[in-house]
Structures are given as structure tokens and as C-alpha cells.
């Protein structure tokens, strides 16, 4: 069967148009099913705040950060995640703080409540605050991989050394594993 040049071009145009439309419609769906994007995240129920995250990450400044779930926090004057053990004076003097970089900002709200905020630029993910908060407080401070800083490596270097197997892939639609949520 012979095909004229005009018909050939017409068929090619129709196939190209149809393919493009189908790609636009089915592409995102197919991408979601076949190439589901996975992100690495720390399971706070498994994490022991051992501190390995700080140096095991391939990034010079680890992608791990401390996060604070305010709904769990006690807003205490004496915060076990902020102060070193045995601290008598409760103020913001650096020598009393657990955080080696001063990444936790403490603010008086009203008697007797204080708010504790994490400065993401300063936090190095060492987990010292989270460890103490878990041991003596409500566990409202804990570690998460900050997806903004994460390189999304195929194999997470922190997961490879995590003694508690606390780091696992999570769907991109659920980038954080937050307590109480």
C-alpha cells in the first residue's frame, strides 16, 4: 500500500500530538507509580540521639537538625534540653547550655513559660539537646534530616552507620516524621 507524502506527514503529526497529550496526562501519574521519589528521614521513635549524625553525613555541615514539637513541650523554665545538668542559674549564659553552638534560643513568654526555638543555621545535629530532653523531659526536641540541606544521596551515609536503624526512606509527600503528627 502506497502512502502519499501528505498522508505520512498527517499521520506523523497526529501520532506526535496524541503522544504529547497522553504524556502530559499520564506522565505525572506514571512517574508517581514507577519512579516514586524517596527521601531519607529519621524515625524519632527509634533514634537514640547517639550523635553519629553530626559527622557521618557527606555534607560538611550535616543535614541533620534538631526540631521542636511545641505541642509536646512543657515550656519549662528549667529545660533539660537547654541546660547542662546541675545548672543552678537559669539564664542564657553559654556555659550553662548543652548546645555547643548556642543554636537553641530561649525566650520568656509569661510566668512561668519559656519558648525554645532552634536556629537551623547554627544547629549541627549533634543530638545532645534531644538526648537530654528525651531522658529528663517530654522528648519534644528530636532530630530530623532537614530536606532543604539534604543532598538526597542514593545511599544515605548516616543510615549506613546508624546503630538503631532509625533512618529510613520516606515518601516525598511525607518528608518529615514528626512526633505527635
Amino acid at each position: 500500500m502506497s502512502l502519499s507524502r501528505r498522508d505520512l506527514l498527517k499521520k506523523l503529526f497526529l501520532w506526535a500530538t496524541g503522544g504529547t497529550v497522553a504524556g502530559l496526562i499520564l506522565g505525572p501519574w506514571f512517574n508517581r507509580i514507577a519512579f516514586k521519589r524517596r527521601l531519607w528521614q529519621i524515625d524519632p521513635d527509634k533514634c537514640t540521639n547517639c550523635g553519629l549524625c553530626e559527622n557521618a553525613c557527606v555534607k560538611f555541615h550535616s543535614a541533620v537538625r534538631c526540631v521542636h514539637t511545641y505541642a509536646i513541650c512543657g515550656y519549662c523554665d528549667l529545660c533539660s534540653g537547654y541546660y547542662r545538668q546541675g545548672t543552678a542559674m537559669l539564664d542564657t549564659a553559654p556555659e550553662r547550655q548543652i548546645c555547643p553552638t548556642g543554636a537553641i534560643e530561649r525566650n520568656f513568654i509569661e510566668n512561668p513559660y519559656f519558648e525554645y526555638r532552634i536556629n537551623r543555621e547554627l544547629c549541627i545535629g549533634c543530638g545532645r539537646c534531644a538526648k537530654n530532653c528525651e531522658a529528663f523531659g517530654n522528648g519534644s526536641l528530636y532530630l530530623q534530616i532537614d530536606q532543604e540541606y539534604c543532598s538526597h544521596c542514593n545511599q544515605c551515609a548516616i543510615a549506613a552507620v546508624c546503630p538503631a536503624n532509625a533512618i529510613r526512606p520516606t515518601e516525598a509527600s511525607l518528608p518529615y516524621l514528626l512526633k505527635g503528627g
Partner: protein
Amino acid sequence: MRQNGLSIYSKPAALLISLPFIAILVFMLRYDPTISWTAHTSDMDNQPPDWRQGSSNVARFGSWHVVFDVPDSKHDIDGSWPSFRGERGNNIQTASALPADFNSLSGVRLLWEITLGEGYAAAAVRDGKVYIIDYDENAQRDLLRCFRLSDGRELWQNGYQQPIKKNHGYSRAVPAVTENSVVSIGPSGHVMAVNNTDGSLLWGVDLASEWNSAIPSWYTAQCPLVDDGIVVVAPASDRALMIGIEESSGEIAWETPNTEQFGLSHSSIMKATIDGVPQYIYAAVGGIVSVSAKQGDKGRLLWTYKWNANVIAPSPVIMGNRIIQSAGYGSGTIFFDVSLQSGNWIVDEGIHRAPHEGLASEQQTPINAGSFIIGIQPKDAGALREQLVAADSSGTILWSSGSDLRFGLGPYLLSGDRLLLLNDDGTLYLFRVNREGYELLDSQIILPDGRDAWGPLALTETGILIARDDKRLRCYDLNGDLP
């Protein structure tokens, strides 16, 4: 052209070459890399000065007093657990409270339940009545409430306005009931004595405004001690370390100066007799102190032992001449001996054990069971964290409940060789314990969906158990044989 072997351009050239180095040197000397830094100082949290001194409002004791019209009970129940840690202050009820074959909790029967303001204050029981200090959130009022043991009907309440904000609950202490009165300490340090029959006010003392006490974080949990008609409390302020108040009149019977400037803790005063001398022992912030309880010598400071633990909730445990004091937040436990030699008190150096090195307790007071001590290890106790343990008098662990049996900050008490332990979630555990080991006999949820069930248990010699979580008080007949 050459001059003495050097080009005439040598000097300018050397000067030219050295100029950049000089410029760098000048720049380095003038450059301050810290110019953009901000000093991290002690005043960056905007806390107002002296906010911890608390309210300057003096409580109007007796401003709220209600006696309820309640019909007589058909079946009165007797029983006693008259103060913090029971009649003898050791958290041990007589073995008769539970039958010899009490090995199961399946027969426990709920007698009644009442709703409370959020807190950890627990009940005292005497002559068929239950007393508890509560906080009415809506009215912002401390309330000493009295209930009938048999059916939980409220008989009276006496309170005073005290606006405070929730800080991990409100009320914390256990009242002390005597033949005539009930003495309570509210979360903000208000010591109040009322008639135990109708709740009418006898007297009140405000530790913060009258004795300059600095109320600790999360309010005070100190439970009053009534000894021989004297209410013994520790203001631990610049005015006094410990005071004795006449139970009947509220007059100050004696006071002990606070020479070491120790602070108020959550611990309670324990009475003990060491080398024949009765004394009141208290774990203040800064150290453990002893004050004479001997007639004619009451209020005299006998000895002190300095220890820097900033949050102390457990009370001192006394085993003969040995004092055992635990504290939370990683402080661990100290063990030291005191003795009276030639009229002088000798306090030895003692030993300190970190939580992972031996017996420790964060909140509850361990029990001296005679030849061993029972306690629950805190979360920072390494492999033994949150396990029920037995230890000897130097804190060496004799046995532990194992990794499958871990508990929180809940209370526990002994009756004979039976240990009743309430976990944070409201599950009651029954153990048989001795120095050699333990046997888990049974467990039962007695506070369904319980949360922070930390208030001390009360167990009467008639087998009535009173337990609470953060918002409920429940009364159980353990033997299930009451009418």
C-alpha cells in the same frame, strides 16, 4: 649604573616589592574578624528580674469553705494512710492489708472515682475519710477536699484564691491527717491547717510571702510532717531552713536558721532516729540537713552534707546510720553515714553513684525494705533504665526486672512481701519481692487511658487502694470483700 655592586634601582625596587606586604600587615593589624559577632550573654531571654519570686498576693486562707449536705453512709469503711509514705513514713503498709494468698488483681473492685484538677497530689486517709489537695482551674483556687472513703461522696472543701498557671499540672503534695486536723501544702507554698471533721480553718502560713521561700520550678511538692503536735516544714529561705508550727494554733514553735542558704526542693522532711537522737532530715537544694526533733532541743541544726543537685524530688531514705538520697536530671544518688561520737555529729565523705552505676531515682522515693532497697531506675541509667531494681545499702544492684519490664515515674509501695507498682499509663502491677529476686504475679489496668499516674499510692490496712492519674482519683477494694 652600578654603585658598590648594587643597581641604583635596588632600593626603590625593594621598597616597591615590600609595599604589598606592608599593606597586608597593616590590614591584618587593623582587621577585627569579630566585628560582626554578637556576644552570647546571660540576659538574652528577656526574663523580667525577680519573676521567680512568685506572687506578692498573700492568700486569704479560709475565704472558701463549703460543707456538703451528705446523707449518712450505709457501710462505713475504716482504714488509715494518714500522710505521705504512710503511718511510719516508709511507704510500707502492714502485711495484713493483703491476704497471704493475694496473688491476683482480678478481684479488685472499683468503689468510686472523682475528677480532679490536673496534678500529682495524692490522698491521705484516716477514720473513713480521704483528704487531698486539689486545684480548681476555673476558680483559680487551691482546695483541700474531704471525701468519704466508702462511697467517695464529698463532705467538705476549704480553699483560697491562688491564680497560677499550669506547669506540668498544679497540685503535688500529700496532706497529713492527725486526730484533730488536716495540714496541706499547696503548690505555691501555702501551709494550711483545718479541722478534719468539718474543714473549718485553723490557721495558714504562706511560705513565699511570710518566709521568703523561692518556690521551685513546677511548684512545690513538699508534704507536711506532723510530729507530736508540731507541723514541721522547710521554707529553706534566707529567713529559715526549717520551722515548727504548733498544730493547734499556728504559732511558730521553733525555727532553724539557714546558715548555708540552702534552697527549697520538692523533697519532704523525713523523721528518723540515729544513734538514739530523733531528727528531721531534709534534702534541700544545696545539701542534706538534719534538725533535732528531741524534746527540749527541737530546731537545732545537727549536721549538714553538701550536695549540688538542682532538682530533688525523692525524700531521704534512712537505713540505720546511712542516708541515701537520690535526685533526677543525672544527679544519681549519694550514700553517706552519720554518727554521734563524743557528742559531735560525724558525717563521712560518702560515695556518689551516677544513675548507670547503681540505685537511682528521679521522682519517687525508694523503699527501705529492711535488708534491701526497692526503686525504679531513671531513663539515664544505661541498660537498667526504667527497670524495677533492688539494691543494697551502698546502691549495688541485687536484681532488676529485665528489659521486658520497664516502668516510668509512677509510685510503688510495699505490704509484706507484695509490691504494688502503678505505671504511668495507669496499669497496676503486683510483685512478690525479696532480697533474692522478684516474681510478677499479675497486672491490671486500674486507670484506663491513664496519663502521668505519678501521685503516690495510698493503701489502708483494710486493703483499700487509692490511686490517681493526672485528672482522676480512683478508690479500689483490692480484696473485693467489702460490702
